[in-house]
């Protein structure tokens, strides 16, 4: 039952190694373009890789108030969940664990695990800054959950034809049949809503109320140093990759070219595009919001957009 291909999938292609390299590269490009937008040269493309390796070499201080096992274990749990999502996302019809009709609900809950790992890690560090950071992180998770769910329901209804579907495979087949989801006019508000949800899910600048280094000293990560901090930073990079990959899988699907490598390359290109439009552009032009502004923005404006396409999809348009 356990064929060796699984090991290859888990460890190499859409699994751990691919996520590590692709995520770091994605963040490097993101920072470079962000710098270019501000008329400055910006760090080298491999800067996130250097950051990660440096943090791996630094000393790990476990504060007196911290609870050691949870403090050290939290980052790894986050990384594992992110890699699992990457395994379940269809890239133009190719999914690593294809026979699992793993569907959107599994992905929604897997997406809450990295946020939960940051929160539990911050709680375990026992610092009051972390306490405030946790509360803000949880509020931002609640705030982007409503529009995300509505968008997924709209897509499920659209891709389901007469019935409704949760399974990513059905969505991929639907997009292979009649073009990317974003081309359907009734799905454009949902695409816009999802584009706005992506930065908050990743914790990107205008919505990074939880890790506001100027106000509450990096929020939950205040007591982290050395290897655990390195893994948390890696989680941030891989989450950028995974969330934009989710957007690409949901909206920018289509008929694959058949060769897995080519599909993966196009898919990665789409992820770059999504990262640019959703994270870099918004990050370069907006200032950080307050926590209840983030909540109100997501539960009124973005949820409204998602509702529009939900209603349209409902009436079969």
């Amino acid at each position, binding site marked *: 039952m356990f064929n060796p291909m699984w090991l290859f999938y888990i460890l190499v292609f859409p699994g751990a190694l691919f996520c590590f390299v692709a995520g770091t590269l994605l963040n490097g490009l993101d920072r470079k373009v962000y710098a270019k*937008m*501000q*008329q400055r040269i910006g760090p080298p493309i491999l800067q996130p890789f250097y950051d990660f390796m440096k943090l791996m070499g630094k000393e790990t201080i476990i504060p007196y108030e911290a609870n050691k096992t949870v403090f050290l274990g939290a980052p790894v749990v986050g990384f594992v969940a992110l890699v699992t999502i990457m395994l379940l996302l269809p890239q133009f019809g190719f999914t690593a664990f294809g026979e699992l009709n793993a569907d959107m609900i599994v992905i929604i809950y897997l997406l809450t695990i990295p946020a939960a790992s940051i929160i539990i890690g911050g709680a375990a560090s026992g610092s009051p800054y972390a306490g405030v950071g946790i509360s803000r992180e949880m509020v931002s998770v609640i705030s982007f959950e409503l529009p995300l769910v509505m968008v997924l329901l709209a897509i499920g209804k659209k891709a389901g034809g007469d019935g409704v579907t949760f399974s990513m495979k059905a969505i991929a087949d639907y997009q292979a049949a009649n073009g990317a989801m974003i081309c359907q006019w009734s799905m454009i508000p949902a695409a816009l809503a999802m584009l706005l949800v992506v930065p908050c899910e990743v914790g990107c600048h205008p919505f990074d109320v939880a890790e506001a280094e100027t106000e509450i000293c990096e929020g939950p990560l205040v007591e982290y140093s050395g290897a655990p901090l390195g893994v948390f930073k890696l989680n941030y990079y891989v989450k950028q990759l995974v969330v934009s990959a989710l957007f690409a899988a949901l909206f920018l699907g289509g008929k694959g070219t058949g060769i897995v490598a080519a599909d993966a390359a196009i898919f990665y290109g789409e992820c770059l595009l999504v990262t640019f439009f959703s994270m870099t*552009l918004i990050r*370069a*032009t*907006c200032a950080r919001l307050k926590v209840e502004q983030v909540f*109100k*923005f997501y539960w009124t*404006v973005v949820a409204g957009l998602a509702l529009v396409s939900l209603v349209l999809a409902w009436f079969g348009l």
Partner: protein
Amino acid sequence: MAFDFPFVKEALTQMFKKSSCEEYPFKPKEAFPNYRGRIVFHGDRCIKCGLCEKVCAGGAIHNVLISEDEEKEVYERTFDLTSCTFCSYCSDFCSKSAIELTGDFHMTGTKHEDLLVKGQYTKVKKKPVAKAAPAAKAESCDNKAE
């Protein structure tokens, strides 16, 4: 609430313009014309009037007697750049313009000596016999007085 997207146009256009960044460590750069940078001390011109020591707010200038023999004393004047405010009072007040603030701004140092400017100067001692001469002068003015 108005969540507008300011500067999107500028952000997008700037992506393709040349960055306004001076790659300093890799491309050399001169300071502005009369930038008050590292201090240079011309020891020979100094007459040890001590005015610069008095006028320095940061107390960065010190004077140390190094060696002394019968006809001249050798002093060493040190300028401690780490406690200097680069107000250039010392160079303005120095009548002999022995102190000069150059345009060199590469003032970083890992050891204390890197940021210590030193300069030596000698001060010729006057002969003691010179007292007699003034006596002669004294007579000359007495007979003028009778």
